[in-house]
C-alpha cells in the first residue's frame, strides 16, 4: 500500500507534464483549431431508412467554452442535435438547441446519449464510406467532420469503451 501511495505523486507529475506538452502547440487561433474531433462514425443503416445518426468525441483544447448550435451535411436534408433520455423506464429523444464544449474539456456524442440525428439521406450509405458534416458554432465559425460509416458490431468496442 505504501508503495502505491508513493507512486501517485510521481504519476501526477508525469501526467501534468504530458498535458502541458500537449497544450503548448495548440494555442488556439480559431475555434476550428481548438476543437478536435475524434472517432466520428455513422452506424451503417439499411437503405430505405430515413433517419441515421452520427457519434463522435469533441475535444476543446482552447481556453474558452465553445458552443455547437447546429450541423449540416450535403449528404442529408438536415441534421438535428439530439439527446436520448431514458427516465422512469421510458426512452425519449429531445431536440436540443446547443451543446457546450467546456474549455479544456470534451463532450461525447455516444449511443443512448447525445447524438447528431441525420435526417433524409440524399445518397446511399456504404460501409467504409464517409459522411462530411459541418458543425456550426455560436461564434459563427465552422468545424469540418469526416465521419466513417461502420457496422455497429465493428464499432462496438468504441461504443462501450467509456464505461
Amino acid at each position: 500500500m505504501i508503495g502505491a501511495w508513493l507512486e501517485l505523486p510521481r504519476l501526477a507529475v508525469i501526467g501534468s507534464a504530458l498535458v502541458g506538452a500537449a497544450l503548448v502547440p495548440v494555442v488556439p487561433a480559431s475555434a476550428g483549431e481548438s476543437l478536435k474531433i475524434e472517432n466520428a462514425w455513422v452506424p451503417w443503416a439499411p437503405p430505405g431508412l430515413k433517419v441515421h445518426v452520427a457519434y463522435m468525441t469533441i475535444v476543446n483544447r482552447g481556453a474558452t467554452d465553445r458552443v455547437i448550435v447546429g450541423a449540416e451535411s450535403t449528404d442529408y436534408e438536415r441534421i438535428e442535435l439530439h439527446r436520448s433520455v431514458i427516465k422512469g423506464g421510458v426512452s425519449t429523444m429531445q431536440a436540443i438547441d446547443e451543446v457546450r464544449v467546456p474549455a479544456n474539456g470534451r463532450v461525447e456524442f455516444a449511443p443512448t446519449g447525445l447524438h447528431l440525428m441525420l435526417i433524409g439521406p440524399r445518397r446511399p450509405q456504404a460501409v467504409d464510406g464517409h459522411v462530411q458534416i459541418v458543425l456550426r458554432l455560436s461564434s459563427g465559425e465552422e468545424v469540418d467532420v469526416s465521419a466513417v460509416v461502420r457496422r455497429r458490431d465493428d464499432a462496438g468496442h468504441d461504443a462501450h469503451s467509456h464505461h
Partner: protein
Amino acid sequence: MLKRRQLRLVATVAAVVAWATMAVARVNGVILDSPALVQAFTLDDHNGKPFTADSLKGHWSLVLAGFTNCPDVCPFTLANLEQVVAELGLRVRPDRLPAVIFLAVDPDRDRPNLKDYVVQFHPDFIGVTGAIDQIDRALKGIDAVAVRAKPDARGNYQVTHSAAVAVIDPQGRLVAKISPPFEPAPTAQFLADLFHQRENARAVGSGQ
C-alpha cells in the same frame, strides 16, 4: 504442495464469486412475483405473416418496443440483444435460446423498412407491427407503453416508448423485465439463471 493447491482453489473461488457479484450488479433485471399471461393480439411479422400472442408460446422470447425512425436507443438495444443471445449460446441449449421480437409501434413509417431494420442485427430477429389498437394490446401484454407525439410543421414526430425488454416464457407469460444497459455477459447470465430456475420449477411442479 497440498496447502498451495488449496490456496489456489480459495483464490479461484474468491475470484469467481467477485466476478459473479460484479456481473449481477450490472444487470437491471426484475423478476415478476407472478407471471402474467400475454393477452390475445393479432399483428403481422416483417414477412407479412400473422403474429399473435400464441406465436410467443413454445420458446422463450425477448420483446422490446421501438420504431424504425429511432436511430439511437433502439439500434443500440437491438445490437446489445444480438450480443446477449450470442453469450446465451455459451450457457444454454440451442432450444432454450430466446426469439428476439421488435414490436414496432409506429406502423405507417415502420412497415416499409421493418424487415431491413430488424435483420441487420440478426437474421432471426423478428419485427412485428399492425393496427394501432393491436399494437396497444401487445404493449399492454409486455407491460410497456408508447406515445406518438403530435407532428411538427414538417410532419415529423417523435415516439416515446418503454426502454425495457420483456422476457416471455414458453407458456406465453411475462416473467421478467430487463432495463438498460444491456451488458451482454451479465444479461445473458441473468437470463440463463432465470431459464434454469423456471424449467426446474416446472419439472418439480409436473411431478406432483
